[in-house]
């Protein structure tokens, strides 16, 4: 564990010594401050609007940080040759992959946490806050979502270039966000010829749509029951372990 933690800490340092995070941080603050204005767009009930747009932005910015950061971890190690002295130490390839995953995930979680705190504070300032349990569930689902995003990007980085990986990871997110429900409907009410195809697609692709509780927050719906939260947690754990194992199999014998 010591080696995995050392690699993760190294990756983590990259985040706060680079400018990416600060750019998104300032952008989010600007957007939220603009939304604080009561007469913005002349929309009554601006509080809901603020929650909707604000949460979408923090989700999107965290996604971009998670994808761009995790996608370059392994390819940059290889292209800059830093992987060679690293693997010449008593460190296995599995430890490098795990360290990179944890480093990326912690970096993304750190960014998400900062964004989330600002969002909650500003939502409360507008008077119509969010129920505490729902805040907790949204935060927890955000952490799970980012760990899944990082695991998928780390896996894709074992055989794709950085730009291809970022593009596919972002497209995958939007595809699942928009068509996840459609895929589920196709499985529940199968059509003969395409049933197998839909089923396979549904099982393989990561279900990013599970994690977004924005609508619940905006409309003040009930928090999720415990069994749903537990199921999503378990799904994330299994999917992340499986996809990282696939990534390891890909780099296990790779020439470096």
């Amino acid at each position, binding site marked *: 564990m010591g080696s995995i933690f*050392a690699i993760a800490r190294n990756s983590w340092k990259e985040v706060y010594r680079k400018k990416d995070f600060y750019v998104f941080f300032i952008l989010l603050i600007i957007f939220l401050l603009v939304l604080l204005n009561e007469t913005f767009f002349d929309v009554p009930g601006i509080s809901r609007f603020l929650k909707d747009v604000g949460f979408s932005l923090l989700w999107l910015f965290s996604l971009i940080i998670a994808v761009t950061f995790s996608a370059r971890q392994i390819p940059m190690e290889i292209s800059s040759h*830093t992987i060679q*002295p690293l*693997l010449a130490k008593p*460190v296995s390839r599995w430890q490098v992959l795990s360290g990179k995953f944890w480093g990326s995930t912690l970096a993304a979680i750190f960014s998400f946490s900062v964004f989330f705190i600002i969002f909650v504070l500003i939502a409360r300032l507008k008077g119509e806050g969010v129920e505490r349990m729902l805040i907790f569930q949204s935060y927890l689902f955000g952490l799970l979502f980012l760990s899944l995003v990082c695991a998928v990007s780390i896996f894709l980085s074992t055989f794709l270039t950085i730009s291809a990986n970022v593009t596919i990871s972002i497209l995958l997110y939007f595809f699942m966000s928009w068509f996840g429900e459609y895929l589920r409907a196709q499985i529940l009410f199968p059509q003969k010829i395409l049933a197998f195809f839909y089923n396979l697609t549904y099982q393989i692709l990561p279900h990013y749509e599970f994690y977004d509780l924005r609508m619940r927050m905006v409309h003040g719906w009930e928090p999720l029951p415990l069994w749903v939260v537990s199921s999503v947690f378990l799904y994330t754990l299994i999917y992340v372990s499986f996809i990282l194992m696939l990534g390891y199999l890909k780099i296990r014998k790779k020439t470096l």
Partner: protein
Amino acid sequence: MDKPIAIHNLTVIYKGRKPKKAVDSLDLEILKGEIFGFLGPNGAGKTTAIKAILGLIYPDSGEISLFGRIPGDCLSRRSIGYMPEIATYYWYLTPRELLRMYGTFFHLDKALINKRTRELLALVDLSDAADILMKNFSKGMMQKVSLVQALINDPGLLILDEPTGGLDPVSRITMRDLIKELKSRGKTIFFSSHELSEVELVSDRIAILKNGKIERLGNLEKLLEERGAHQSLEQYFLDIIRGE
């Protein structure tokens, strides 16, 4: 006692439309406490052989043993220090942070890592730059960092890939003296180089590699005597490579 490096019939083929044998049936043993110079022109297979020794690439056939263990075994790398040909490290770290991270991999305690970091950075005259981000470093400074990171675990075997490449004359002499000093401390040193004059000054034995195969292997003085008295290593090397 297991030899630091024992290679038997090592073959590495780079696949592609035109597969190329980068290393061809290499047999080599490195003895404890010696300085071994691994020579050859560009593309001879030196770096490929070193990568195979370190487990960075998987050979198509043959066996490699590091202190009696296979390269893929993490424990085999406990007693090794490796300085790569291309010295690039994480730009967003300082040398102190880099050495701390690498020291952790060897399960060294914090106090020992700090002590070695101080000593090693002083050895290469980088004490003042210990807390400066490496993005500000020159090539020579990176080369020094590259050397000290290879020494953080006080290894029994040092593998140096072109250690004097890109160094100014003063740093080159420092590096040469350092190699000699490490030998006097009982370290085994296996290094590849293009700098034949450097090799001549420090090596006990050499191997000359050409097209992935060993053309000559043995004690440096004896090999030079083969071709008549007082031939320089440079002339000897050129004769071998040109096939004369």
